[in-house]
């Protein structure tokens, strides 16, 4: 049996990849065969496990060796145990079923008198604990936490933290141990207990008050560290134990995040000032601690002088040559901007220059920061920089930039003309990276402005741009739409062509030519985009046919439509056929159908963030909450709790829209009432103006029923009196939310009925209820009985929860409804009065 060294050498000396794979395969097979041998002696087993480890590092599958690793653990020899534990930590993880076989070995070894053996067991438990292991082995950890051996205490503390993470109920068990541990002098133990505190804080909300009582002790340690002199053991380039520093600051930051005025806060403020002033003079070595201190300053309720100190430190970091310091400073400034926007504005020029930096990470940070510091004053300058940046950046960032920039323009643009020209420039460069709702917003924006001259000018600009940049999806889409709506306005005007500098006059034929170019483009990446363009082209062709006078032009337009009647895409074919029908209607009728669209409302979107951030550390109005983006904080908050447990109540909004189009389509073949607006396949944000619909219907005298859902009959149900098994969950002026416990027999299963009652005087529609339970439990929701509530009406939904018997019943509920057209969202926690499964 060759040794490990020989094996490694033979792998490394293989001349080709094929030879290497052959060596590996052969050895792997040898190891597997030898494992099957019942009488394998320990020495050979150890050799094989060592080779297995090498296979692991190479990335080869090692699952066949799992049980063998466990066999090594029962040996009394230390070297065997050491190898066995090392291998176990690598080859096993908490998802393997074999993990439970470890329980016995770990249990015995943690009681071993040899501190190193106990240490090995602790280390393994800390790295690969599962909830079951946590449940079985926490007594051992508890005992070791109380031992006098510092080596074991420090490991036990970290393991305890891991156990709390796997099983949050254990936090109540470990919390009383914390004070004793906090009094220890050894840095290792302190690091461990601080981690335990953080873990308890994260996993158990009820512990927050008790944890605050530990703050004086933590502050004392921080004070000691600040005033301590040089200590060779812990020193890192002149700073005494930066690891402990950072850990202390981080823990304080976590505990004191939402605390209002108190002595602790004052003491912390003083200490932070001390820390910052002591370390300000240091060079790069102290930056890690300074960075942590500055972050802490901006999370807790510090006084303004401290905040100014923080910003100054950040500016110092920003001007360093070290890339890491600059990166870190840019990142923190994003958080700071909420509190001290003026201070950050001072650094605008630095931020802008960082946009051109050759390091991608710094560019990204600078980009996010640029959007954050945008105001009405600096938007012009910043936009210029951003457009240059957009030109040169890579694909990943383009959608982010286009979305953010359009939102920023919406908020801060000085006038509409500039706004629109910026949008056109953006579309020229990155037209393929616009998301659909941004495009709809742009169209809505155009329609909102009534100024004919401006609209004419804009349309001409669009035509100019799209002649050259017909590859950009966003630009083409907007241009086609505008041609359809405002084509008649631009007839007769002239413009200078981009390349040839010739003045071209816009005639009907030129517009038709442009349309034909667009409808024949097939260079878009996504089929859906190409189909959208075709669909829009058809509609525009139809609209223009009623506006044009030239017979030749109208004939060409008709040809465009008839050609599409044989298109392979269903939607396009249907549209083409419909439009063909309309084409032959008398002119007066056509004009009625194809009038200008009234402007839809412009959707206000919030900004999106480039990097998803956790919200546990900041509660002061998360500045980067999402619009419709998954990187949003509030979305993450709910989702983090849920994991896969979230069950969404289907909001019938989408189905309603489909119902609308379906009814109208069927009407088309009966009478000829047509849905005038484009509904792009993506969920349409443009709302259907009800008045326009009525006009069309009147025009034809047909009975095209608008399929708005009939409101539920108004019943005046008096508010039900709470019964024994009914628990009030939430109540405000609009909604009364009650949970009725139907079944809770204590065997890990509960059936609840959630009842939502409308307390207000108006109709609430689009009711949606989302529920979440803790990770250890499972949730099943039925669909809600009724999504529209008239005053006094109520709707119910059934909630089934399964989980560990005896675990607490806790549900987080998020409700959404529309009141008088305004969407409202409410979130609350329901504790079931301490009931358990």
């Amino acid at each position, binding site marked *: 049996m060759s040794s490990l060294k020989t094996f490694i050498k033979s792998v490394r000396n293989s001349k080709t990849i094929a030879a290497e794979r052959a060596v590996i395969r052969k050895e792997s097979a040898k190891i597997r065969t030898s494992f099957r041998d019942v009488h394998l002696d320990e020495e050979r087993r150890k050799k094989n496990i060592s080779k297995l*480890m090498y296979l692991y590092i190479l990335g080869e599958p090692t699952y066949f060796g799992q049980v063998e690793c466990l066999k090594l653990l029962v040996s009394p020899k230390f070297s065997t145990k*050491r190898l066995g534990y090392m291998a176990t930590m690598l080859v096993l*993880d908490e998802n393997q079923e074999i993990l439970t076989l470890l329980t016995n070995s770990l249990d015995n070894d943690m009681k071993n008198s040899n501190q190193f053996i106990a240490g090995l067991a602790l280390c393994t438990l800390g790295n690969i604990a599962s909830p079951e292991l946590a449940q079985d082995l926490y007594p051992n950890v508890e005992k070791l936490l109380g031992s006098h051996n510092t080596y074991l205490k420090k490991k036990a503390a970290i393991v305890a933290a891991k156990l709390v993470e796997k099983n949050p109920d254990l936090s109540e068990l470990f919390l009383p141990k914390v004070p004793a541990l906090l009094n220890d002098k050894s840095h290792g133990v302190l690091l*461990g207990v601080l*981690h335990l505190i953080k873990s308890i804080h994260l996993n158990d909300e009820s512990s927050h008050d008790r944890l605050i009582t530990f703050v004086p002790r933590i502050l004392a340690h921080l004070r000691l560290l600040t005033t301590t002199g040089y200590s060779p053991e812990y020193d*890192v380039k002149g700073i005494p134990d930066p690891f402990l520093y950072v850990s202390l600051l981080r823990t304080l930051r976590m505990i004191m995040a939402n605390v209002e005025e108190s002595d602790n806060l004052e003491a912390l403020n003083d200490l932070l000032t001390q820390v910052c002033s002591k370390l300000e003079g240091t060079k790069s070595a102290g930056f890690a601690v300074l960075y942590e201190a500055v972050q802490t300053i901006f999370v807790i309720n510090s006084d303004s002088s401290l905040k100014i100190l923080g910003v100054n430190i950040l500016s110092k970091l920003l001007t360093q040559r070290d890339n890491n310091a600059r990166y870190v400073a840019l990142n923190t400034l994003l958080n700071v901007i909420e509190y001290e926007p003026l201070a950050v504005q001072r650094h605008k020029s630095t931020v802008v220059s960082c946009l051109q930096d050759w390091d991608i990470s710094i560019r990204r940070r600078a980009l996010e920061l640029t959007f954050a510091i945008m105001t009405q004053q600096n938007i012009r300058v910043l936009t210029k920089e951003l457009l240059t940046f957009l030109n040169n950046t890579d694909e990943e960032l383009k959608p982010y930039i286009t979305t953010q920039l359009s939102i920023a323009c919406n908020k801060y643009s000085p006038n509409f003309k500039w706004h629109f020209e910026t949008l056109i420039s953006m579309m020229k460069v990155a037209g393929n990276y616009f998301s659909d709702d941004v495009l709809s917003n742009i169209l809505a924006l155009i329609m909102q402005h009534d100024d004919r001259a401006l609209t004419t000018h804009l349309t001409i600009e669009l035509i100019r741009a799209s002649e050259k940049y017909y590859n950009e999806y966003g630009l083409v889409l907007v241009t086609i739409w505008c041609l359809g709506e405002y084509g008649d306005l631009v007839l007769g005007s002239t413009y200078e062509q981009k390349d040839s500098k010739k003045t071209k006059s816009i005639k009907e034929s030129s517009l038709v030519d442009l349309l034909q170019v667009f409808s024949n483009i097939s260079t878009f990446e996504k089929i859906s985009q190409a189909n959208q363009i075709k669909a829009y082209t058809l509609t525009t062709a139809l609209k223009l046919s009623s506006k044009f006078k030239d017979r030749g032009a109208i004939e060409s337009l008709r040809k465009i439509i008839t050609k599409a009647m044989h298109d392979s895409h269903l939607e396009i074919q249907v549209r083409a056929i419909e439009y063909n029908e309309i084409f032959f209607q008398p002119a007066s009728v056509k004009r009625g159908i194809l009038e200008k669209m009234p402007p839809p409302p412009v959707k206000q979107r919030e900004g999106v963030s480039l990097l998803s951030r956790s919200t546990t550390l900041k509660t002061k109005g998360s500045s980067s909450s999402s619009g419709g983006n998954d990187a949003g904080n509030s979305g993450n908050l709910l989702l983090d709790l849920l994991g896969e447990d979230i069950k969404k109540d289907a909001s019938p909004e989408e189905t309603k829209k489909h119902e609308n189009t379906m009814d109208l389509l069927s009407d088309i073949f009966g009478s000829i009432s047509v849905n005038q607006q484009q509904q792009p396949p993506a969920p349409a944000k443009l709302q259907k103006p009800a008045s326009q619909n009525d006009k069309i219907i009147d025009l034809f005298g047909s009975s095209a029923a608008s399929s708005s859902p009939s409101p539920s009959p108004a019943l005046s149900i008096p508010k039900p009196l709470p019964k024994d098994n009914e628990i009030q969950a939430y109540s405000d002026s609009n909604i009364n939310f009650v949970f009725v416990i139907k079944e809770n027999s204590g065997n890990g299963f509960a059936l609840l009925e959630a009842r939502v009652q409308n307390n207000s005087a108006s109709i609430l529609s689009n009711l949606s209820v989302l529920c979440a339970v803790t990770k250890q439990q499972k949730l099943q929701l039925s669909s809600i009985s009724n999504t529209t509530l008239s005053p006094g009406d109520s709707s119910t939904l059934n909630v089934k929860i399964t989980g560990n018997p005896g675990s607490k019943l806790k549900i987080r509920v998020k409700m959404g409804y529309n009141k008088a057209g305004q969407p409202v969202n409410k979130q609350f926690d329901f504790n079931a009065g301490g009931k358990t499964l």
Partner: protein
Amino acid sequence: MAIKYLILLSRQGKVRLTKWYITLSQKEKQRIVREVAAMIPLRKPKMCNVIEHKDSKIIYRRYASLFFICSVDNDDNELITLDIIQRYVEIMDKSYGNVCELDIIFNFQTAYHVLDELIIDGVIQESSASEVLKKVAQQDQLESGESLQR
């Protein structure tokens, strides 16, 4: 302040050591290693040591012919992670006696032993370099003492 995983990579992208502090399937681990191996060796020397990758940050530093690569959450302190990597390298240097890549290839057990004495579950357990060295040396002595006894 938790490290999600630690990977040691050669300049050519060959893996010399991996340690995972989060639970992932074998496939996912391979995917991550592939992505990291494609990204990191291409970085120029003066560049920032932090890369934003999907929803976490990758922090790395090059020592001689090896890249030491860690992944942390978005909120974690990047600079202190660099200090942790530095500590690890220093201790290994003292353990092996002027460590080089070849040492780690043939004696990976020692690298793992040092790592397990420095970090548990992605969290640093001992900030004193001499203490870590002492414990590792004591355990090594115990092992060699046993083999002498045979």
